[in-house]
């Protein structure tokens, strides 16, 4: 278990592309941090910088007490789970899990014991003598996990480990990985493009976009107080509604109606989560529902509010129909952004 500190860590590729703009943050001992963002946002590069698979252009990286900038991946005392699992196809599960220990010249009986323990923990005991090609996707995923935990590293790195699994298995493995990390208490960095994975697994989320960190916070902070319109629209499904409004004499005005108080003057982007717009016969605002998406537990109403599209999420027992609808908004749940920079006001 170790603390990981990044100080102005930066990656520029030889062709001049800046994949990671100077990034600074600290991951506490035992913390589960998820790097999330769209493809090409630099999250995988960030992970590979920590792993030592990419050279650091600038900045300082600490793992535990050591500066590891120029230390080989093998000597950083880390373990990594790859998207395609990177299992050795010609070796049995037992050999795959024990390979890292064997390379470190650990005694055979200790390897045997550690592999058995890891296999027991991951329900792989019956599959130890099979080859990866004889396993299902979920089992391969577990072997990759086993290979990581058997080494007892300072730090776990996960590079989109669930993206090759089907939806059902993904949900199951998500819980298993989280539970395992809790039990072992190893500091973990997890990369994903799936915001649901990020929300459900993380102690803290780091949202990245265009090589830059947009926001660092707990899932709740990131969800309720997005730092930018990018975070607001990336986190949460359906995404936060972003509406153009204006601030006039200390009030936010949308479609001629005041919806909240805000100091300043000029245009503003109002962010409101779909579940914070509530159908209410006595509500102050009128919207026009154009389409209803049935999701079972709840419904998404697609509507027009003051000429702008909005989504409203309602519970399954709320009666809704296409046509005009009166709604109320939870004023405390509103976010305001500068329309020019996209940053939170």
């Amino acid at each position, binding site marked *: 278990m170790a603390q990981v500190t990044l100080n102005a860590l930066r990656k520029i590729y030889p062709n001049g592309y800046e994949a990671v703009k100077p990034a600074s943050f600290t991951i506490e001992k035992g913390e589960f941090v998820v790097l999330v963002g769209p493809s090409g946002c630099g999250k995988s590069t960030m992970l590979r910088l920590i*792993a030592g698979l990419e050279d650091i252009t600038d900045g300082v990286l600490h793992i535990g007490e050591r500066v590891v900038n120029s230390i080989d991946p093998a*000597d950083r005392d880390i373990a*990594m789970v790859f998207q*395609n699992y990177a299992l050795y*196809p010609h070796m049995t599960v037992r050999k795959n899990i024990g390979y*890292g220990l064997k390379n470190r010249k650990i005694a055979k009986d200790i390897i045997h014991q550690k592999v058995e323990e890891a296999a027991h923990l991951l329900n792989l005991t019956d599959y130890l003598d099979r080859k990866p*090609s004889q396993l299902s996707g979920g089992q391969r995923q577990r072997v990759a996990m086993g290979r990581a935990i058997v080494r007892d590293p300072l730090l776990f790195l996960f590079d989109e480990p669930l993206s090759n699994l089907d939806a059902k298995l993904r949900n199951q493995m998500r819980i298993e990985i989280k539970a395992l990390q809790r039990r072992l208490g190893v500091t973990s960095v997890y990369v994903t493009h799936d915001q649901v994975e990020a929300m459900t697994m993380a102690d803290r989320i780091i949202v990245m976009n265009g090589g830059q960190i947009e926001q660092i916070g707990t899932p709740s902070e990131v969800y309720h107080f997005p730092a930018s319109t990018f975070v607001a629209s990336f986190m949460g499904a359906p995404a936060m509604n972003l509406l153009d409004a204006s601030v006039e004499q200390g009030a936010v005005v949308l479609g001629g109606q005041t919806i909240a108080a805000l100091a300043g003057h000029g245009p503003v982007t109002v962010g409101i989560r779909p579940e914070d717009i509530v159908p209410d016969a006595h509500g102050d605002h009128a919207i026009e529902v154009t389409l209803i998406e049935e999701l079972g537990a709840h419904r998404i109403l697609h509507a027009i509010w003051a000429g702008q599209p909005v989504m409203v999420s309602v519970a399954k027992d709320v009666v809704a129909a296409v046509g005009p609808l009166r709604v109320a908004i939870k004023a405390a749940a509103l976010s305001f952004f500068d329309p020019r920079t996209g940053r939170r006001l």
Partner: protein
Amino acid sequence: MMRREWIYAWLLVLPAFVFLITFTHLPAVEALVNSVWTTAKGRRPSMFVGLGNYQKMLQDPIFIKAMINSGLYAALTVPTSIALALAMALLVHRPFKGVAAMRMAYFTPTVLPLVAVANIWLFFYAPGFGLIDQIRQFFGFASANYAGQPDTALYSVAVVTIWKEAGFFMIFFLAALQTVPETLREAAAIEGCSKWTFFRRVTLPLIMPTTLFVSVNAVINAFRLVDHVFVMTKGGPDNASMLLLYYIFETGFRYWDTAYAAALTVVLILILSLAGLGQFYAADKRVHYK
């Protein structure tokens, strides 16, 4: 209805079948048959001798010499060309500036006809003014006639084969190396696996199917490719570079002892079949097919 489909089926395979039988199966059977008869001469018709031709081989010093030479030749060319091919593939399988030119340079000997290659090497070996002799003379060594001396002729011929074959086999290894996923290398790097260990424990096992394929081909070629012997040494001097297939040619088409040549051919085919089967059998347990 069934009958009709069967007729169609037979008609469809007929052309291929006719050619295969006429030019492959019939000659093979005929060779087998001929090998147990004597060659017909003007004054003496062909007569049945059973295994006589085969017994004759055991007393034929040139045959024994050719067998030893062929074995030595295979033992020299097969491992060397495979090792060289793998080494070249490892050198050029990652992109760097000029990699395409480098790959082409390695591959060039393959596209040249073997007879042309033999002529090039004949120049290299030529005593007095050949490339090798010029280098030797530059360093003050005496002139040497590699292809013309009994103790070096076979090696001179073997070197040409290796030079020609390594580039061809490299292509297969190159393709195989590209299929080893990069993430395996990265996973191994994190697990503290040295480059050499990774090559030995991961890369080599993963490209084993290719190695097997290449080695079967190399063995077959070692017995099959003798074009350069015609150009360079003609099996000489004093049968020093006599290979089995060249001996078959000499027996059959220079001395017109076709029956004996047929028997020799049967032996050659037997050796090749056994070598091929043996390789598949021996390697089967160590080859990991994906």
